[in-house]
């Protein structure tokens, strides 16, 4: 857990440094209220679907404390697969779409007014970017 905390803090520090560089913020303290609920995320330099994934999925499936999707997958796979969906290398677009539109266990299904087909395509692209097949 400690390592994840350090990695997360580091990753966020880097991301924020990049974001604020453009605003040329001076020496004053930066307002960051939480490291776990996403404020508006920049897609700059990120793969397709990254922004949509952060917006619609990361609250449950992201990294860090209190992510019930990640916790559930940890309990399910016990390390056989990465609990973090973003790290999976075996997902297919069909699988991603099936879970989003059908739900599983306590994950509900999502309507098109919540996650449009276009957004879902992007999320699927993001989650399958590491699938070499």
């Amino acid at each position: 857990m400690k390592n994840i905390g350090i990695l997360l803090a580091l990753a966020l520090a880097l991301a924020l440094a990049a974001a604020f560089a453009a605003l040329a913020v001076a020496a004053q303290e930066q307002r960051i209220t939480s490291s776990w609920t996403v404020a508006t995320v920049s897609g700059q330099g990120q793969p397709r679907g990254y922004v949509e994934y952060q917006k619609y999925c990361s609250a449950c499936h992201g990294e860090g404390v209190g992510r019930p999707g990640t916790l559930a997958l940890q309990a399910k796979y016990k390390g056989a697969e990465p609990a973090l969906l973003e790290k999976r290398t075996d997902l297919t677009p069909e699988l991603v779409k099936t879970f989003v539109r059908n739900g599983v266990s306590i994950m509900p299904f999502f309507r098109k007014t919540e996650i449009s087909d276009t957004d879902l395509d992007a999320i699927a692209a993001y989650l399958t970017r590491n699938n070499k097949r």
Partner: protein
Amino acid sequence: MRLPPGVSGKDFSEALRQFEETVGKEWVFSSDEDVNLYRDSYSPFWHEEEEPVSSAAVAPDGVEQVQKILQIANAYKIPLWTISTGKNLAYGGSAPLLSGSVVLDLKRMDRILEVNEANAYALVEPGVSYFDLYRYIQDKGLRLWIDPPDPGWGSLIGNSLERGGGRTPMRDHFAAHCGMEVVLANGEIMRTGMGALPGSKTWQQYRYGFGPYVDGMFSQSNFGVVTKMGFWLLPEPEAYRDGTVMVQKHDDLVPFVEILSYLMNSEIVQGTMLLESPLLDYRASQGGGVLDMPGGPSIAEMERLGKDKNLAYWSATLHFYGPAKVVDAQWEYTREKFSSIPGAAFQKGRSYRFPLKLGEGEDAPRVALGIPNLSIFGMLQSTQGHMDFSPIIPMTGEAVFESLKVFGQAYADLGVPAKNQFFALPWSFFPRSFVLLFGFPLDHDVEKNRKTREVFKHLVQVAAEHGWGEYRTHTAFMGAVSDVYSYNTHALRRFHETLKDALDPNGILSPGKSGIWPGRMRQASA
């Protein structure tokens, strides 16, 4: 294709065509695949014929489209069911109560119309979630807090109209609202409170306007479609701290709750607390129930066990918000008051200053700090969702004892074993009272779900017999719950029906919501 009850195939096709003309083909959903997305993910009727499902859904992007949709619905007598973000899980989700209704999905109406930092309020549309408003406030660097419910993905409007609650001092969501805009069944737009004065400068600052205060009529009801709502927000406090108070004896609960009540009503202790029992939790972990079962251990036996295992009988973590000096003084004063109970013990909790720094508060009670998240789902025991039984009981130790006994007996009568006795000790989600939240787990198992529904219905009756009513309920039980609010031959429901007949003569708005049926459907449901 499923049809709304009482509507011919020809009329329905024509209505759908007109809906498509209004919102665009893309935003009318009538295929099986699309309509399935409007089921209740946590339905207690999964796999059963009885599961209410919609016939279609239509998603407008603004008030003008809402007006047109209502006009069409009136013309063809199409029952609608309005949802905001559609995340009312455990209470019916995005599914209608009346099977065949067309869901009016307001998620696309997601504009944040105003956030005023100096006067600490916001004006939003129904599709705005707690996450959305939080992100907006963070992006703009405003020193304001929202008050999210445990799951942050719901709608401010939807949740407050259901009279849901959160954890900060602004926890009573309906009470925190100020001003509404409503589209009535006849398509007219009405603004309440100060909004009824054109060009009003205080719509989100003074609640009541002039004359009868009608806002409550649109909560948990089907008298109109709310399209805008104002909310008072908490200015970001300087500090937060919490601390835990523990008492050792069973009967200590009485003075404990008396003192708690005094402190809460004086706004010294703020926000939502949960009454806990380390001792009863221990008993539950050993296979015994939490409830007072006939033939269970005596108080003396339990107290001996508590002494043995060094477990307090009752405890609560209390929250304080405000300037650092003030919250420190409030905690000191709280300790002083509770020290009048012999054996009372205290544990200093967490403290934070705001704004938090990066990485700080990873393990903080985020909802209590106004930070929306979904971590609550990591704490649920169920496999396929749950539904909540939520009676209100008085804020007294005696009422807690009575509830433990009454529900213990109820489960015994139903033959429910200890491990399946879903119960919760009280929360203070709302001022001046306690609420019990029993989360009944659901499965995709027809027999199990049927049994759970029977238990639920029985508990509704048992609670009513003891003067306890639910503050909110699942669409499956709205009739049963509204039935117990029967004072003077159901005078309140008859009043609702009078209003319903006047405001929605064609019965197009959310039939059956809170037990209120339009005239033309009333005989059929009796």
